[in-house]
């Protein structure tokens, strides 16, 4: 490892740790997940980037949403995202989470994922190739360096809007709010109206 990298390690170990050890929660939605097994196995070895899949959200800090998100899946996605420890980074994979993709007029598929949880980066395309995942990872590194991958801070700051959006789609959620949703309610009404 070269010199300025070593200096970086000494200066801000936490940030470097978050960069080089991205544990992706193994959450399969849609067709995009078919690209993940080749990218974590011998063909495109994701582990050299420090990206490995882990089984539970408690151990993960990277959330790949791989494909279209139906309303039922959205509930699981929100639950999983809220159970991940901070800092956590979300990447939408494929065009469906971006704008609905080919399900743009479906009655049961949410179109814009970032209305419900914050998304730090998108991988466009249908399907993106596995190399695109690594492009996204390296891009995420630069974002973490510039402290622009702060979706979790945004979620914390604007939680009541996110919660309002989620409840607008899903009805009342089973679990209590993660952060406090008290605040300027008239602003809440104005935003959601």
């Amino acid at each position, binding site marked *: 490892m070269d010199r300025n990298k070593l200096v970086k390690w000494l200066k801000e170990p*936490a940030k470097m740790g978050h960069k080089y050890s991205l544990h992706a929660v193994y959450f399969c939605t849609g067709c995009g997940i078919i690209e993940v097994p080749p990218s974590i196995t011998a063909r495109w070895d994701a582990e050299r980037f420090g990206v490995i899949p882990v089984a539970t959200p408690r*151990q993960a800090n990277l959330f790949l949403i791989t494909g279209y998100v139906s309303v039922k899946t959205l509930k699981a996605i929100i639950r999983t995202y809220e159970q991940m420890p901070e800092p956590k980074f979300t990447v939408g994979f494929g065009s469906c989470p971006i704008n609905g993709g080919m399900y743009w007029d479906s009655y049961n598929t949410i179109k814009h994922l970032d209305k419900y949880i914050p998304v730090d980066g998108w991988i466009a395309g249908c399907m993106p190739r596995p190399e695109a995942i690594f492009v996204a990872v390296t891009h995420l590194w630069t974002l973490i360096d510039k402290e622009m991958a702060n979706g979790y801070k945004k979620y914390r700051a604007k939680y009541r809007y996110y919660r309002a959006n989620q409840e607008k789609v899903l009805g009342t959620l089973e679990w209590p709010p993660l952060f406090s949703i008290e605040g300027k309610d008239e602003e809440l009404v104005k935003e959601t109206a």
Partner: protein
Amino acid sequence: MVMRIVEIVVSPIIAFVIGIFLLGLSRKIMARIHWRYGPPITQPVIDIIKLFNQTSMSHGRLFNLGIILSLAGSMVVVLFLPIGKLHPLSGSGGLLVILYLMLFGPLGIALSGGEAANPNTSIGISRTLVLALGYELPLILILLAVMSHYRSISIVEIVRAQQETHWSLLSFPLVVPGIAYLLILPAILGERPFELIKAPQEISSGPMVEYGGKYLALATIQHAFSSFISIALFVNLFLGGSSNPGFFIMKVIVVFVVEVLINAVFPRLRIEQAIRYLWRWPALIAFAGLILVYIFKR
């Protein structure tokens, strides 16, 4: 006295460094065997740094206490194990104490996982304990063979006796239990084909389900310690320990690489298959070894 304190400080540090190094090494070797480039060998350190800088969720006091207890117990075992010439506390208890202190690791994880209140955790712990019962049966026979062959329950005595003569893996009656120990070593390390404790695909990493952040970091360190301990025990009992720490660590690494080679090519057994295996071949061989030792008394 000062020497004693230095040893007490140094030997856990050695165990920690070597254990973490072994984790990184195993990931690298596995990657190479899979024709991958693999992570940098410092990847476990990066993971631990990251995990210590994450937020984490706690399920209660026992959840914290258990993981602390398990890591502390593993650290204490190192003080009783001779690492080369370093055996600070081995004067105050022999192999039996080591055997019992090795309980703290799984027991602490079991208690804190129990408070996590997750069925995956409970299944993982029940597998942990059943597997432990599975490999303890041959392990106890092996240790009894060694202890009653050298007529001592002090591991320092056993190491010294080996260095006077030769490795007990190469001496006649003890070669049989030595082979049995090699057969159960993957089960003690929890590696494949006995990686059924935290089987990420079925029970989503078992006892570790609710661990995140610093809890997972401590659990990783504990795993590093325990893998170091269970190999160091083998090296002390059968490969004649060593006179200086350097050679000792060499031996440990060699044995670990052998285990990684086994780990890389095997699938995972079901728990009944594991118990059936452990109670058939290693137990029979260890039993035969104990009989042989009983016959050929020194």
